[in-house]
């Protein structure tokens, strides 16, 4: 008699796989990567390359030799973390910064919590924040490196618009004066002639990535939309009350990696809530904290910290904001 295959139902499976989802996110990031290669040339390629290779290596070494568990580097999650971390760094970062960042991101933020699916904090962001706090000079040096193969030779050097604004405000200038002094133009910010990290330079590329993720149903719109809306509304309140000392919502939205954070970092599956209501509260929290850090905190840019703080609240959100159940409870069953 033929040996039949026996298993419990269901007997069919959909086409989604962890690898496929990670691959879709990497594809969604590629417009930003390509634009940054266009503007920053070889340094962008170097950072992305080193990032991906080191993250994958660190995960491989830890899984094979330290925890002696199954090696799962082929699910692309480490590669994705490497790419995201690379996109978060200033373009002139040396390669060893990337290496340290990878070790912290994968080793500390991901593997020491138990590997894929078990970490509380976004690994790429933990890596970035660790680097920011440990190497503040390198991490805030936004100068464009000179390198062979680079277009866009006339990009600015030095600080990002946010840093300029922060410094200007602390020196007593008003917003109008700062804007006038530096020739800020929204159009330029949209198409990235301003300083910034490797990934935040082209808003359009990021939005293309968002469109791809939504169409492929990789993420749901709740988190990005809520973050953007909250940032606009909340910073709008400050701006309306005192336009000379607070930047307007559009400026906030277009600078400082809010879009990169809202689209790619806050929507990381493992560290974001599981239900719609939870996601909305998460997004609101991130938006509020970001604006508060930007307007009142010491750092010019707040999205990384905001996301990490809200990551810590996600287990609580999952516990208290469960999806709506079908049918009410019937007593004595």
């Amino acid at each position: 008699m033929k040996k039949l295959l026996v298993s419990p139902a269901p007997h069919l499976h959909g086409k989604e796989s962890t690898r496929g989802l990670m691959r879709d996110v990497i594809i969604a990031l590629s417009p930003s990567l390509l634009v940054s290669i266009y503007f920053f040339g070889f340094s962008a390629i170097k950072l992305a390359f080193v990032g991906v290779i080191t993250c994958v290596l660190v995960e491989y070494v830890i899984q094979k030799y330290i925890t002696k568990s199954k090696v799962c580097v082929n699910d692309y999650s480490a590669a994705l973390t490497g790419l995201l971390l690379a996109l978060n760094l200033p373009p002139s970062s040396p390669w060893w910064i990337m290496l340290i960042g990878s070790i912290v991101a994968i080793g500390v933020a991901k593997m020491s919590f138990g590997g894929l699916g078990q970490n509380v904090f976004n690994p790429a962001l933990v890596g970035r924040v660790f680097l920011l706090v440990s190497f503040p000079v390198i991490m805030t040096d936004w100068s464009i490196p000179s390198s062979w193969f680079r277009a866009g030779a006339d990009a600015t050097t030095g600080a990002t618009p946010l840093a300029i604004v922060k410094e200007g405000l602390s020196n007593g200038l008003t917003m109008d004066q700062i804007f006038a002094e530096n020739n800020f133009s929204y159009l330029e910010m949209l198409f990235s002639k301003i300083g910034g990290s490797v990934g935040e330079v082209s808003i359009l590329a990021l939005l293309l990535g968002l469109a791809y993720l939504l169409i492929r149903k990789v993420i749901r719109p709740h988190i990005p939309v809520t973050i953007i809306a909250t940032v606009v509304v909340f910073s709008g309140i400050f701006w309306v009350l005192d336009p000379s000392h607070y930047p307007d919502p559009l400026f906030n939205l277009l600078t400082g990696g809010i879009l990169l954070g809202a689209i790619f970092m806050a929507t990381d599956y493992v560290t974001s809530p599981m239900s719609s209501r939870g996601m909305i509260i998460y997004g609101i929290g991130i938006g509020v904290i970001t604006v508060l850090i930007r307007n009142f905190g010491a750092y010019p840019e707040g999205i990384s910290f905001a996301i990490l703080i809200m990551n810590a609240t996600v287990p609580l959100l999952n516990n208290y904001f469960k999806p709506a159940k079908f049918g009410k409870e019937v007593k004595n069953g």
Partner: protein
Amino acid sequence: MSKTFSIGGIHPHDHKISINAAIEDFPIMDMAYISVSQHLGAPAEPVVAKGDKVKTGQLVAKSTGFISANIHSSVSGTVTSIEMLPDIFGHLVKHIVIKVEGDEWEESIDRTAQIVREIKLSPKEIIERIAQHGVVGLGGAAFPTHIKLTPPPNKKAEYLLVNGSECEPYLTSDYRIMLEEPEQILIGVKIMMKALGVEASFFGIEENKPEAIKIMSRLASASYPEIKIVSLKKRYPQGGEKQLIDAILKRRVPSMGLPIDTGVVVQNVGTALAVYEAVQKNKPLFEGIVTVTGECMSEQRNFRLRVGTNLERVMFAIGGFPKDAVKLISGGPMMGKAVSRMDAASVKSTSAFLLLTQEETKRGEEGSCIRCAKCVDACPMGLEPYLLNRLSRAGRLEELEENMVHDCIECGCCMYSCPANIPLVDTIRFSKAQVIKIIRSRPKK
């Protein structure tokens, strides 16, 4: 505008490759293996013995207890033994084994093709006739129909819902009977409405069956206006009874409750046809339409199969077990049961035999849960399968009950959507059974 249910659901490819296979009579087998346990509830007790001669449609096993059903012979011949034989799971069940001789039917069965429209029996007589002829629900669960059509005294039925959605991929038996015997089905629905004492009924059909919707709507609006045909969106599990009630009436069955708690009784379209045959043609339930399908098969078939047909015999009729196939499923691919023994036989609730190849059905390697929440999005009961799976593996029954594991309808949407190939339904089903046992054993307040 097609209606649909409100939470969750998935959109698998419907694979209705057997949609054009007209119903054909399955050639009578040589031996019939009639199980006494073909329905939910207590097994029936045989009323024949070795050596007895039986006719097609004759009572061979009697209902025992409150939830039970009669079983009739599907063939004519001599009873060779009453013995314990394995079912599709390998469990030993009492079977009545009959050596087939000819095909002589009971004289009281009306075998003419004429459609009998007038319903002469009273509601009480209808229920008795349905019980007498062993009609059980053909939607998969095989719950005795006469019990479902008799709500408890404190609950009144307001509507009858007929389930013609056939949301499981590959299955087309319900579709074919809607095409080939539409009026008989509507008369069956009318009979059930009379038995329940309801004045309106809704008949849901998924929109991927436009021919069926057209035929049924035309017939219903012409001669059976009390039956409203409703077009439903193609979505799995549209045919789940709770989802059907939510889609058509926007009412939700409460947790641990039954459809009658919302004033509704749901019946499958195949059951409606069986009711027509039992009440109008005096024919007991001993054969049904079974789709035999699979991409690896050269020809798709819809058979009128008699109860008790050995599975090897079914394979023989389709030209042998396809060499690429590795799994034989009794039922649909989302909730059907994988057969473990080919020497088992078909039962009343068999609706399909599906053959799947290694590539189509082999489970992928299990990975870590990446907390993507696709299972949460897919669950039509609003549960959190990732959490239920984790709690099940840890054996935390109290928290499982708090998270309503007993509401799971085992539809498989969560596991279908999981990118990490985690066997969610396997563990949830197991702990659901444990939790329900505990809930039922508690003293009622």
